[in-house]
């Protein structure tokens, strides 16, 4: 009898839509209707989260153990590792909150997608090493039973860093550190470079480091004074385009909001205090706009093209198999574009990027820009390296942000580090204690010694 009623409903709807939908369109509609009715019945029966006043299934739950603010690659990585590393299954309830489920402005989707291990900080090198390993064996980590294996389009073509005369010494010492950490790097002279990659113009290049894989930290202490420690009780999650919000009571908040981490931190009261004190130390992460250009060059370098970073700061990589390339350049401090919107400045490519590219790779003298976009770096204005770990005063807020352009490549390892910090209380695999928040207050910069 039930089925008969449904058939009638489906039939009536079908007729109303005309003959064109009768053959193909009616069956999926019918199953949709059935599932809708089932959902309605289930929401009224006991056994589900039933609120007699109104249906709240679109709102986040009222309680969660960990709330991760920011659903980009870092936030999701932390969520993944928290669930993966918890010993009893189902122990922790994790809620990931993001303000835009289309990720239209998220740095994750707009990133160039390069991964390198040639850092100078050992922590960065270890993070990248693990992340490469993660991406290589992604099916071990992220495969779902009965689904086809994942393909993240990981092209291990290598990363080539070029150094001019000034930077050659720094590059050599960096390579020594990288080798110590276990990264596979090799130094090449200009002749070797010319032999390996005949399309490069080795003008002005003193040394090149080609590899897949970096360190140093200084510590200080200072005296203490009276502080107020704060605790986050609940996170108000405001729903899209409405005034509805759901207070989510939580034990921990993880700030993985990328370019907007500074604003999220301000909401928690970080940085409200007299400057120079611990209360007054803000989270120095702000959005910086960077352009990425996509061009086609029929005579460009072929399949063995590594991700090349020129001495001038311009970089590019191969995309796909049709002589397409992605690349860009970090602007200097004076030419920082306005991060208010994601509009692309094409003149920047003409004036700043193309000359250097054309100089380094003569084939690029004739290229055609197909498209361009802009994305945000979650730029750490202090030392351009990530912030990981808890805040000393707001005790239950952890950071996993501020990676200033190398967030995507270090995300799996950082996620694991934060999950270890939450679950075990200390870093187990990679020790990131030099990336804690307190360095902003103590004034110790943990900088990358790059050649640029």
């Amino acid at each position, binding site marked *: 009898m039930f089925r008969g009623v449904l058939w009638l409903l489906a039939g009536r709807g079908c007729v109303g839509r005309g003959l064109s939908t009768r053959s193909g369109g009616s069956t999926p509609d019918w199953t949709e209707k059935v599932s809708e009715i089932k959902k309605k019945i289930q929401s009224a029966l006991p*056994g589900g989260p*039933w609120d007699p006043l109104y249906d709240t299934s679109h709102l986040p739950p*009222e*309680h969660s153990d960990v709330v991760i603010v920011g659903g980009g690659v870092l936030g999701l990585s932390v969520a993944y590792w928290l669930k993966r590393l918890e010993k009893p299954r189902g122990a922790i309830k994790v809620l990931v909150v993001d303000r835009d489920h289309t990720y239209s402005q998220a740095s994750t989707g707009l990133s160039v997608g390069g991964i390198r291990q040639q850092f100078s900080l050992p922590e960065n090198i270890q993070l990248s090493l693990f992340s490469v390993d993660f991406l290589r064996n992604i099916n071990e980590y992220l495969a779902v039973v009965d689904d086809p294996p994942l393909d993240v389009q990981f092209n291990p073509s290598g990363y080539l860093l070029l150094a001019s005369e000034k930077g050659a010494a720094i590059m050599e010492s960096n390579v020594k550190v990288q080798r110590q950490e276990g990264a596979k790097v090799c130094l090449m002279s200009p002749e070797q470079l010319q032999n390996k990659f005949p399309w490069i113009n080795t003008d002005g290049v003193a040394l090149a480091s080609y590899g897949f894989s970096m360190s140093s930290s200084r510590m200080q202490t200072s005296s203490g004074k009276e502080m107020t420690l704060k605790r986050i009780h609940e996170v108000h999650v405001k729903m899209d385009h409405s005034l509805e919000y759901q207070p989510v009571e939580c034990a*921990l908040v993880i700030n993985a909001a990328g370019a907007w981490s500074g604003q999220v931190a301000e909401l928690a009261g970080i940085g409200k205090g007299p400057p120079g004190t611990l209360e007054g130390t803000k989270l120095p992460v702000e959005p910086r706009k960077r352009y990425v250009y996509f061009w086609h060059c029929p005579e460009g370098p072929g399949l063995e093209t590594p991700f090349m970073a020129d001495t001038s700061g311009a970089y590019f990589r191969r995309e796909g198999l049709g002589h397409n390339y992605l690349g860009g350049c970090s602007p200097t401090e004076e030419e920082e574009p306005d991060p208010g919107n994601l509009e692309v400045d094409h003149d920047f490519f003409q004036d700043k990027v193309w000359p250097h590219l054309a100089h380094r790779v003569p084939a690029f003298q004739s290229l055609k820009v197909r498209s361009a976009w802009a994305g945000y770096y979650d730029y750490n204005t202090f030392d351009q390296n990530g912030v990981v770990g808890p805040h000393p005063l707001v*005790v239950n807020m952890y950071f996993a942000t501020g990676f200033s352009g190398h967030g995507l490549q270090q995300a799996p390892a950082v996620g694991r580090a934060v999950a270890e910090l939450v679950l*075990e*209380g200390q870093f187990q695999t990679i020790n990131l204690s030099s990336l804690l928040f307190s360095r902003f207050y103590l004034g110790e910069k943990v900088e990358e010694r790059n050649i640029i």
Partner: protein
Amino acid sequence: MLKIIIPTVMLIPLTWLSKSNMLWINSTMYSLMISMTCLPLMNQFCDNSLNLSMLFFSDSLSTPLLMLTTWLLPLMIIASQHHMAKEPPTRKKLYITMMILLQIFLIMTFSATELIMFYILFEATLVPTLIMITRWGGQTERLNAGIYFLFYTLAGSLPLLVALIYTQTTLGSLNLLLAQYWIDSSTHIWGNSLLWLAYMMAFMVKMPLYGLHLWLPKAHVEAPIAGSMVLAAILLKLGGYGMLRITMMLSPTINFMAYPFMMLSLWGMVMTSSICLRQTDLKSLIAYSSVSHMALVIMAILIQSPWSFMGATALMIAHGLTSSLLFCLANSNYERTHSRTMILARGLQMILPLMAAWWLLASLTNLALPPSINLIGELFVTVSMFSWSNFSIILLGINIIITALYTLYMLIMTQRGKYTYHIHNIKPSFTRENTLMSLHLVPLLLLMISPKIILGTTY
């Protein structure tokens, strides 16, 4: 008995007419005084009961339970102060009124002479508890929990009503004092078995028996702290008390009906203890441990021997105090970290050492360490079960080991180890919390000296 009931009823105007700043103090102090008035009931005649009136009586079985009930009300009020602090005064008063109403019903239930009055008040205790769980519980699941709690108990006790009315019409009276003297020599007929089942199901659901225990983890976990305390300490014992009273009235020829429930309890005891080992939620762990301990009580009552009745009564009192104490400790964790997950609040011994002492004592009594009264209860039950059937010792032994395992697991997980970073600024233990824990532990430890007052009618 009126000297206990009337003051408890008068607690309600006391709550409503108190000034907001004196509300908690007044209700706590006066309810403590009322628990003192319960003490003279301990002066029992050794051959029979204290018959105080036509409606109320108390004997050596109901007196310890009455004492536990009246002792628990001030403890519930003390425990609720923190999470009710931000509510408007009317709601606070309403909450305390619910607790007092529950208290009145419970006192009258435990001292009822007439079984119909017992039944009415038995059902009436559901209403304030349901209101406390669904209105003041923590999370969305509390509605689900309230529904399970209400309907399981209601469905189980409707046959009890039918059975009581049937007995009233056939026998003429349902007075408990007279019930001891009936000599029921009825033969083995189906009707008697159904009657046995109808009587026992209500109490089985309440205890709870292993197959019908689904409401308990939900209700205990979602209830606010006062709700959890009263559920674990008293409401479960209503089932045990009812069973102890009713078994006297039922025909001894139908004792074979007990076998399925014995099997369920034996198996369920081991099962729920094992589930405790896998729990990640602290309150859920304590709830399942309640099911496990109550399974012992069910078994003891079903085998109907003097030693087992003594063990059942002792275990009920001991478990009431211990479970309530564990819930209070779990709640003190929850109020600080806002999460019931055990792994997020670890290593508390370093930060709150006095609370760690209470945790240790609570865990020790929970795993029935000698010479606590928990041990006396468990030991008596184990010994009488062994004499009933030699093989049951295997399962009982396994249960004792697993109880020790999960209790120590809970202790080590919450107290020992390196503490998580985000708990280093939790507020230190309040005097109120320390008072609460010690008021739980003091009777538990003092009863070690003279456990005969809790050993019930067959001592």
